[in-house]
């Protein structure tokens, strides 16, 4: 597996905080969980209405998603399994097999 399968089970979710209060909560969650922010490039940019894409690791996703649900912050899953998407979109595995 590419990258030693480290991204197995990782997700990318999209959130658009509807209020400044929810944006504040989201910023705290991102900061606390040290998430990999795909967009925007910095937590400081997150405010009401900001399209926020977050890469969450498999081992922290349940707690993080529970936090978001508790705060009533809606999200959609953009990528359900990062490793699968990585493998599918790349010819690297096939190239390595051929070599």
């Amino acid at each position: 597996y590419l990258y030693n399968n480290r991204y197995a089970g990782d997700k990318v979710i999209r959130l658009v905080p509807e209020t400044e209060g929810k944006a504040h909560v989201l910023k705290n969650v991102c900061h606390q969980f040290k998430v990999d922010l795909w967009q925007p490039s910095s937590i400081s940019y997150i405010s009401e209405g900001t399209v926020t894409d977050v890469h969450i690791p498999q081992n922290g996703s349940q707690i993080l998603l529970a936090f978001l649900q508790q705060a009533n912050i809606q999200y959609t899953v953009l990528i359900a399994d990062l490793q699968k998407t990585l493998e599918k979109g790349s010819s690297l595995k096939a190239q390595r097999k051929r070599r």
Partner: protein
Amino acid sequence: SLPGYSYEVYHSLEEIQNWMHHLNKTHSGLIHMFSIGKSYEGRSLFILKLGRRSRAYKRAVWIDCGIHAREWIGPAFCQWFVKEVLQTYRSDPAIRKMLNHLYFYIMPVFNVDGYHFSWTNDRFWRKTRSRNSRFRCRGVDANRNWKVKWCDEGASFHPCDDTYCGPFPESEPEVKAVAHFLRKRKKHIRAYLSFHAYAQMLLYPYSYKYATIPNFSCVESAAYNAVNAIHSAYGVRYRYGPASSTLYVSSGSSMDWAYKNGIPYAFAFELRDTGHFGFLLPESLIKPTCTETMLAVKNITMHLLKKC
């Protein structure tokens, strides 16, 4: 081009550099490769100079890709651009005019250390790989390290943040090398184009403040025509406008620096997509992404050759 070299797959740094070396040997009439310095980890910073050699004065266009390591579609486009130009120089009058009247300086991988790291360790690495003496975190955001309102809004002083501006402007050897190169040639470089992902946007200055640039009408019309050209290929919509209001405010960006240093057309492209794949744009989408982007770059270049 290099036999068997596919422009529809992502290539490692080593493959890209081998490709550059090959083109330098096989297309010496149109291509000249040189290094402008070394990265933090000691890798050469290679540039390809494209254009028909001429003793007459020629203006130039600068194109860089891969300032942020994880944005792989950027370097893929830089390679595509070179391939396309070489393949169509004789058959496409627009390309021939571009190469006869201008030089193109192409930097296929700006952040060589970060790009290599994203191939070997962390696919989603963004920054450079420089070390910090006081913190365990590495890297500086190479698009916050330029000397234009450095480390103001939209950048961070904390070394562990992804938008870390660095200990001082041009602290990163990659940024310093490119800045030095552009400063020396600023009188004849007429356009600065930088390729990032993802958002499907064409951005122009300012990024660091909400204000209108002096040559707004010329730049805006170039951007308008460029996004229409993108749309004409596959119907993909790109937003366009000043970076501060179209994306967000960020200080210390290469685009703002280039503009401030007298390059009249400075653009930052945010290529496909808008989040469905994000940084993991599949290789099957390299061709349509690069095809549409090529039209935009040709459009901007032809706009540059006319008087505005």
